[in-house]
């Protein structure tokens, strides 16, 4: 799955650690999502979409992730 998490995080000026705190997950989880090594669950994907005020389909799209 391809995603825009890194782009949106950087646009907000947040570090991976700061985003991890907002989502209540570990920094390595944010890192793995950004690098396409891990596809988040639906609840976490919705949490990301709400945090960045985006539609979920504009943040994630099918494609080669890993």
């Amino acid at each position, binding site marked *: 799955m391809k995603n825009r998490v890194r782009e949106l995080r950087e646009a907000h000026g947040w570090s*991976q*650690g700061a985003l*991890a*705190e907002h989502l*209540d*997950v*570990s*920094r*390595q*989880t944010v*890192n*793995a999502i950004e690098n396409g*090594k*891990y596809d*988040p*669950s639906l609840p*976490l994907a919705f949490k990301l979409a709400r945090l960045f005020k985006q539609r979920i389909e504009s943040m994630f799209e099918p494609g080669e992730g890993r």
Partner: protein
Amino acid sequence: MGRMDEWPGWRRWGVWLLGWVLYVGAFWMLLAIDNLAVRIIGLAGVCAGLWVLTYSSRAVLNERVRSIDRWQLRVIVPAFMVYMLLVVFVLPLVNGVAAPWLKAVVVLTPMVPVLFIAWAMVRYVNHCDELERRQHLEAAGVAVLVVSIVAMSLGLLAAAKLVVLDGALMLLMGLPALCVVYGLTCTWSKWRNRAR
């Protein structure tokens, strides 16, 4: 000083290494030196080592310590202290006990803190995030597979009388072997996702 995860890399890794030196050194003092004062210092050192390792293991991966880590530390360190006290001071008393039922009670006493630690580990994993839970599940699977294959291979060799094994020792080594493989697999899994 600031938060440990914001320290420069050399300092975070230095504290992590120091934690391991403290932990292993104190463990050696506790088990190898037959002197009460040294053993008490060793026990305190093991607990301090666990504390330093919990904080520094997160920090070397640029992670801050979370509330569940602090809870685990508050629960597991006292339980581990009780376990070590029982193994070092209570278990040797078994030779002076005649009644089989009392002997069984004395020998099985260390299982109480072990069960408590197992419960704390389950609670810890349940409070991890989804990627960490997957890593723990994978690590548990790898540990079971590796230990089962090694145990079965040794069993076949022993059945063919090619090696002589102490059955009691082999059974005792089961849980530590699972923990070591589990820990190494977890560490490798976290290491893969360390980069920013």
